[in-house]
């Protein structure tokens, strides 16, 4: 359903796009002196009570571990929401803020900062480059990662084929894992997390760059029936990647994305293999088997449709009804004839 004209609202409006922390830009371009100037100014401001409390609570449970102590030391500055610098070439304000709660919840929440960043980051001012090596997921993760049911190199190969990797657009320059997956807050969707939140969180990553899609004059998704309902229930990548059982990193160009309703609304729906597979697992874990059976939502319209079978069945049903009706009329006529003959006798 489209929004009424004059009040353009999208269901995704309530989704706050994650703040893209341009930490990679910082690692390559931030002049240490500029950083120093801003940091000195900001450190002179007393920490807000909430930030101080969050830093304290972040370190509370593992305060004795060296990694936690190191994180606390870094977060003393980086937990401040106002920590930022102005990028000298573009003039943009680049945030250096790291949300301590998001970091604690992330898959990297138990790491020490210097596990990834340069050793020399222990000192201040920090060096110009954040890490000693090419810094992406493959740089640390290996194919023997037991927590991941698939191959990291496979993910990398998918990404290398994606529009984000092959595009010659200046906007796609330096695109890497961290452009979407902020290492300071990334965590995979967890069982128990409501599906709408998963969808909103995933889509917010895409919309952090592609925000113009939400502008009312943009018609790129106008072809989609019940567009807003689709946007609330389906992740961008469910349509904008080739069908796959796991999340696919081969993001397709807009013109390559298939506008095929039957891709989902069919007997072999890709949604069931991807998003709804997770949804079923999540609901079984949360509600139990019986409740999952009662409130199952994994039926995608069209899954059971077969035009040939439907047509054939309706024809057979129609013929059967005609045959039975003819049989009944015959019986009635015989009965009436018998009654008449008995009456005459």
């Amino acid at each position, binding site marked *: 359903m489209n929004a009424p004209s004059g009040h353009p609202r999208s269901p995704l409006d309530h989704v706050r796009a994650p703040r893209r922390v341009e930490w990679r830009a910082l690692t390559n371009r931030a002049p240490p002196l500029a950083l120093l100037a801003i940091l000195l100014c900001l450190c002179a401001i007393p920490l807000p009570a909430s930030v101080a409390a969050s830093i304290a609570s972040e370190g509370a449970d593992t305060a004795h571990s060296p990694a936690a102590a190191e994180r606390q030391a870094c977060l003393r500055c980086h937990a401040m929401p106002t920590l930022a610098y102005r990028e000298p070439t573009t003039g943009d304000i680049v945030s250096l803020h790291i949300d301590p709660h998001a970091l604690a919840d992330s898959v990297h929440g138990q790491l020490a900062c210097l596990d990834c960043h340069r050793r020399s980051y222990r000192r201040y001012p920090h060096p110009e480059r954040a890490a000693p090596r090419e810094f992406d997921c493959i740089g640390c993760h290996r194919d023997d990662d037991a927590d991941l049911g698939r191959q990291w190199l496979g993910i990398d190969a998918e990404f290398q084929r994606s529009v984000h990797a092959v595009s010659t657009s200046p906007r796609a320059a330096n695109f890497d894992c961290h452009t979407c997956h902020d290492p300071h807050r990334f965590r995979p969707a967890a069982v128990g997390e409501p599906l709408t939140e998963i969808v909103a969180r995933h889509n917010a990553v895409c919309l952090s760059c592609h925000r113009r899609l939400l502008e009312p004059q943009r018609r790129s998704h106008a072809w989609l029936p019940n567009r807003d309902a689709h946007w609330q229930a389906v992740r961008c990548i469910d349509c904008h990647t080739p069908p796959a059982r796991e999340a696919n990193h081969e993001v397709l160009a807009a013109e390559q994305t298939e506008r095929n309703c039957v891709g989902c609304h069919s*007997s072999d729906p890709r949604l069931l293999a991807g998003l709804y597979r997770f949804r079923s697992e999540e609901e079984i874990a949360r509600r139990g088997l019986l409740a*999952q059976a009662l409130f199952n939502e*994994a039926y995608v319209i069209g899954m*059971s449709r077969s035009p040939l*079978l439907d047509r054939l069945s309706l024809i057979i049903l129609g013929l059967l009804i005609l045959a039975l009706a003819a*049989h009944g009329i015959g019986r009635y006529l*015989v009965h009436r004839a018998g009654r008449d003959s008995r009456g005459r006798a």
Partner: protein
Amino acid sequence: MTTLYLYPLWVRVWHWLNAILFLVLIASGVSLHYAGTTWLMPFATARILHNVAGILLTLGWIGFVIANARTANGRHYRIRPRTLIGDLIAQTRYYLHGIFRGEPHPFHVEPERKFNALQQLSYLGVMYGLMPLLILSGWGFLFAVYLPPTLFGLGSVWVVALTHVAVSYLLVLFLVTHLYIITTGETVFANLRAMLTGWHRADSSSTSRSESS
């Protein structure tokens, strides 16, 4: 005129519960299958109705199988191979020809045998063939996440979906035929009344033993 007590209370309760569930499942199933058509029930309503009715139908079927195994009702489902072919031919000939000639019914209801050969085969096929397939494929839908990627070399969801729909259509054909065939008793409503009261009324000459008259 004699009467036989053919349908004990549990059979009648089960039968009418099944009938209601069949109607609910057909209405909700058609609404899911042809979702988007204006005169059908809303998708969300159909979804929950179909799930609940399907689970109740499963429980009912399990109860029926257990009760049939543990009570005397099961004897009506045992085929008599020696007379089966002859009985089938006679029954089919009666429905296609004899019924229009006023011929007597070739099958006589007895306490030991309440189904004619055609009834027996169709009920056996429905209760022990189609119903398990319907129930299994329905639960396959509910827990599609646990299905293997392929079944018999085909996408498992596709196999489950098509099985469920094809069996559903066959059961609708059975239901329509059943509704017509019950009108072919002594009178148009005699069999319907029997399934409501439990008592089957028959011509005394066609009944070997009577319990009351």
